[in-house]
Each structure stands twice: as structure tokens, then as C-alpha cells.
């Protein structure tokens, strides 16, 4: 059973006179990573602007955690973590200072700010640049910091414009997003056409075209379901370090390893590890397919089997 966090029914929104969302209906679920696939980043930004409470819909109904926020978008602000621009006027700030600023700006209790900063630095693997000024960051570090500052206050809904980044950064980001979603939060990321890397990180994909919802795809298996890998070699002991270092729970039985993967990035890394140790090719069991969502009662939705 998956809890529906955001429900939009026939919403439409105009920004500067132009219709950006037209009669769109969709649902987003707590505990899942949802991608907003749009042809232009403008449409995704507009929808995120609505979901963050910065823009108001002109029609339809928008419910967040069961509360109708159509006419009261301000109430969303404390629930949402979204920083719409990646850079900002922080080039002369260190990573710690940026996070401290956003922790304070998001209203984190003063006595918890330091802990929140420390935890976020660790989660996004930014400890090594905690005292480095932002203008010296690599583009990947900027992407990570940008995501980190959106999540510093542990919001119930996280919106990210994009997760375009290098391999390592995307891996870190994927783990963080999965970890967020795993704790019952909603994670929404923007995805432009052909961004296959992003598709690997997400559970659901809502595609919009000309402001209209074109399709909704849901991953077949819940994110943290165990994924079984089969190896051609019986000697898989060399892979134990891999799972331990990533804090992945796993069971080993013969040539099978069953583990809960935080993201498909882990799968890719595991494959590389296999090649490195000569263990042989593994076969992950995962797929994505379209699946209708069936409401059961009230705010809770079940998934058709």
C-alpha cells in the first residue's frame, strides 16, 4: 500500500498569461521518486512552482497530504524543499555556510542547525568541501550542494529541477533521494527528453506535453524491494566488502545474492565490481512498466497487481 501525498485533479495554471498546465490530473506518492518529464524545462518549473506553493492554480483541485491547498498555497511552503535556481549569490560561501544559511532560512531550530548541516554534508558526500568556497566547486559538487540545500530541513516534499550530473554525483544524489523517499517523503525531479540517466533513479514518470499529462508510468516493484542477483561463479565472497561499504543489507545463498538496492547506480557499480574481481556477470531483476493506479479509500491508494 502506498500513501498518496499529492493529488492534482484537472488543475490548470497560467503564468504571464500563457497556459503552462492545462487540465492536468496526476498523483504522487510518499516513499517514491517521481520524475516530471517535460519537453521544456519551463513547464516542469511551472509545475514545481505550483507544487511548492509559489504559484497558485487557476482551476482544479490540488490536495497535499489530504489538505486542499488550491486556494492556500502558502501552507505548502513549510512542507516543501525546493530551490529553483542552482547558483545564486553564494559564490563566496563555503558548503557549510550555504547549508547553514538555508537551514536558518527554512526555520530549523537554532540548536539543531549545526547537526542538520553536518548530517547533510555527510549524506551528500560534501564533507571534503565543507570549508571550500563555492566558486571553487566542480559542477558535480554544485549540483550536490544545490540538492542538499533543498533538503536541509528534511521537508516532506522535495523538488529538484534536474539531477543531471556526472556518474559519481548522480550516484550520491540517487542514494540521497532514495533515502529521502524511503523515509516516507515525496521526491519529485525534473526530467528532460532523452535523460535516460534520470530514469534510472525514479520510480514513477509523469510526462507532460503542452501542459497536458500525456502518460503516467509506475515502476513495477516498490523501490526498496529486494533485488535478486545471480552470478555465474559460486565465489561471491569478494563482493561482501562492496555491500558492507555501501551499508546494503544482503543475503548470500549459493550463487545468489539478494540485496536491497538504493538505486540502479548500485547495480552498475556492482557490475563493475564483479568484473574487477572476476566473479562473472550478474543478472538484476528489475523492470518498468505502465500500471494504472487504483484508489482504495480516502488518501491511500493501492497499486494494481
Amino acid at each position, binding site marked *: 500500500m502506498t500513501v498518496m501525498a499529492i493529488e492534482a485533479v484537472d488543475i490548470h495554471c497560467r503564468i504571464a498569461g500563457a497556459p503552462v498546465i492545462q487540465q492536468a490530473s496526476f498523483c504522487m506518492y510518499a516513499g517514491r521518486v517521481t520524475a516530471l518529464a517535460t519537453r521544456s524545462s519551463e513547464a516542469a518549473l511551472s509545475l514545481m512552482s505550483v507544487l511548492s506553493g509559489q504559484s497558485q492554480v487557476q482551476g482544479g483541485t490540488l490536495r497535499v497530504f489530504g489538505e486542499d491547498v488550491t486556494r492556500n498555497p502558502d501552507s505548502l511552503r513549510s512542507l516543501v*524543499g525546493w530551490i529553483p535556481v542552482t547558483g545564486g549569490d553564494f559564490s563566496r560561501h563555503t558548503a557549510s555556510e550555504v547549508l547553514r544559511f538555508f537551514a536558518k*532560512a527554512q526555520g530549523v531550530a537554532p540548536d*539543531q542547525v549545526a547537526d542538520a548541516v553536518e548530517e547533510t554534508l555527510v549524506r551528500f558526500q560534501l564533507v571534503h568541501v565543507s570549508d571550500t568556497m563555492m566558486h571553487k566547486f566542480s559542477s558535480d559538487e554544485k549540483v550536490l550542494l544545490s540538492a542538499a540545500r533543498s533538503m536541509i530541513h528534511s521537508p516532506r516534499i522535495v523538488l529538484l529541477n534536474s539531477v543531471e550530473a556526472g556518474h559519481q554525483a548522480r550516484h550520491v544524489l540517487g542514494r540521497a533521494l532514495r533515502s529521502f523517499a524511503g523515509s516516507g517523503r515525496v521526491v519529485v525531479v525534473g526530467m528532460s527528453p532523452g535523460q535516460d540517466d534520470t530514469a534510472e533513479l525514479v520510480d514513477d514518470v509523469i510526462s507532460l506535453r503542452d501542459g497536458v499529462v500525456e502518460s503516467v508510468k509506475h515502476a513495477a516493484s516498490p523501490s526498496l524491494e529486494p533485488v535478486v542477483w545471480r552470478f555465474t561463479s559460486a565465489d561471491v565472497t569478494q563482493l561482501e566488502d562492496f555491500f558492507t561499504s555501501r551499508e546494503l543489507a544482503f543475503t548470500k545463498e549459493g550463487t545468489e545474492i539478494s540485496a536491497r538496492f538504493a538505486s540502479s547506480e548500485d547495480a552498475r557499480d556492482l557490475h563493475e565490481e564483479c568484473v574487477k574481481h572476476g566473479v562473472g556477470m550478474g543478472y538484476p531483476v528489475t523492470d518498468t512498466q505502465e500500471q494504472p493506479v487504483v484508489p482504495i479509500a480516502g488518501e491511500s491508494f493501492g497499486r494494481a497487481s
Partner: protein
Amino acid sequence: MTTWSVSDALSLWQGALTVAQQELRQRLRSPTVTVLGVLWLITMVAIVVWNTQLRAEGSGETMLAHLTFAAVVAQVCVGASWPCTSLPRSRSANLVAMFAATQLRVRHIVAGKLLAVCFGVGALGATLSPAMVYATVLSGVDAWRVVIALGWSTFLGVCAAGVSMGIAASARTFGAAVARVTVALAVSIVGTWWAYGAAVPAEVEAEVTVWSLDPNQSSVPPAPKDPVTADSAVPPECVVSTEKILTARSHPMWWVLAVNPLAVVVDAVPYPSSDADVTDDTERAYPLASLKQSLRSARVGGAEVVDRCTAASTVSEASLGSERGASPVWQQVGGLPLWPFAGVLWLGACSWGVWQAGRRLR
């Protein structure tokens, strides 16, 4: 994953402080500030060296005057240029978008930026301290007069920032904001002197009341109606008459000077008001005293009462029966300070700027 306790709304002080810290970090660490800081240091050293090495007498007084002027110009210019970089519409979009995604609101942004300017302008004044202390010790001028001058200078710097916020937030681009603020600064610091000089007719012939020493000594003037001179101690030598003389008529334009920060600071610093004429002692009390007297005289314009008794060297203070400051002319001059009007004017302009910035950022 830890869930932090988050408040729904930030207090004005909390939000403003957060924004001010961010603003100051970003500004003070930029290379531009380092360059400007070095230039400022060179200017201060140049003032001190020039006054101590090249001028033998009165070096402390003139050094103090130069430092005061440098402080006023620097603080007003820094205050005015501060908001230009982030508030024009082309640049504020990101700022507002970013802050709007947090608990910060426009009031926090505006108050925070103003708070940052207060700190920046104040710090600029503080960098003058060593030179100011040195000049104060050298000149023997009361320290509190210097503190008042710096206080006014800082106040005007912050007000300039407020006005500039309104101007910058109304401008579309950074270039437009800089151009407008530069024009405003030029008008304020240079243009006002020019406007005052150009708009005021140099001299007009007017009928004035003249108090002068009686050349005949025997003709005692009738008891004057002026309460100051009405008591029995009025010296019999001083007589009143009416004369047509050439006199300046500047008072209709006096308010222009209130726009000039240099004039305001000079006028605001008190010095012994009993000195109708600025003497060496008065100059020692505050080196800008003569300029202050000129300003106030200019505001009064051609006096309708001219006191020639006071100026006469033959008349002692005892024979006048009162201090020199009690003379009708000086009472009029000394009693019309520029600074209260200027203070209200600058504060009003600052309020307009802050309100305008808040409106534009919304």
C-alpha cells in the same frame, strides 16, 4: 533520517540577520572589496602624511577636516552603490525566487540588506578610527565632536543606501541602476553646491536695520524692542538705523544644502555657540566651524538686521552687557540649523527607497 523541528515563520530580526550575514559574507570576501580597501587605506595614509609632513601649523585640525570629508564621501558612496548589484530586476529575479522558496519574505530581504549596509558603512567609519584618534589628539578637538560627525556620516551613508535600494529595485538592469545612482550621488554631493550658487542672486539692494556704534556718543537710541537688547544693560553706544545696502538673498534656496551630505555633517557638529565670529579658538574646538558659520549665514541670507556693534573691536563684551552670541544677527544665524531638516529629509528619502524596494521585489 533525522527530522528537524522547523518553525512556520521567521521573526523579522531572525530573517533579517540571516540575510545580512549572507550579504556580508558574499560582499566582504569579493576581490573588489580588497581592492577598494587598499585604495581606502592609501587615501587615509595620504591624508595623514600630507597633513603631518607638508603642513606645519594646524595639521591636526585640517587633518580632522579632511578625514571627516573623506568619511562622508566614502560612506555615502559605499552606501549608495551597495544595493546596485543585487536589486535591479534582471538580477533580483534569482534572489527573490531563491528566498521565496524558504521561510524568508520580502521584508526579511529588505531589512537584511539594510542591516548589512549599516554594518558595512559602520565598519568603513571604524577603519578611520586610528587616523581620527591621531588627528583628534594632535588637534586637541573634543572627541565627542568627532564622534558626532562620524555618527552623522554613518547615518547619511545608511540613508543613501535606502534611497539607492528604491532606485536600484526600479531599474531593469545593473547598468541602469549604476547610472541612476551615480547621477543621484553627483547631484547630491556636487550638484547641490552648483544649484545653490546658480539659483541664488548674488546680491540685491535691500533696506535693513543696522545696529552700529553711535559716532556722536551723545545720542542714546530709544530702547529697542528686541528682548535681548531691551534690558537696561544695553550699551548706549549702540544705535539703530535703517540703511539700504547690498545684501545676499539666499534663504529661499537654503533647503538645497540639506541634500548635500557634506553640508549636513558640517552643520550638525556643535561648537560653542557663544562665538559669533569664528576665531582660532573656535576652529580649535572644531575645525569646520567657519564652514558651518558660512552655511548658516547662507541660509539666513542677507540679514534684515545687521550688527556692527559686535564686530567693532572697541566694544568689549562687558560693555555690550551680554555675550557676543546674544547679538541679534548671530542669534538668527545660530538659531537656524540645517541638520534637523536634513535629518528628516534623508530619513524620509530612505523610507521611500525601502518601501519602493519592498514593492518592486514582491
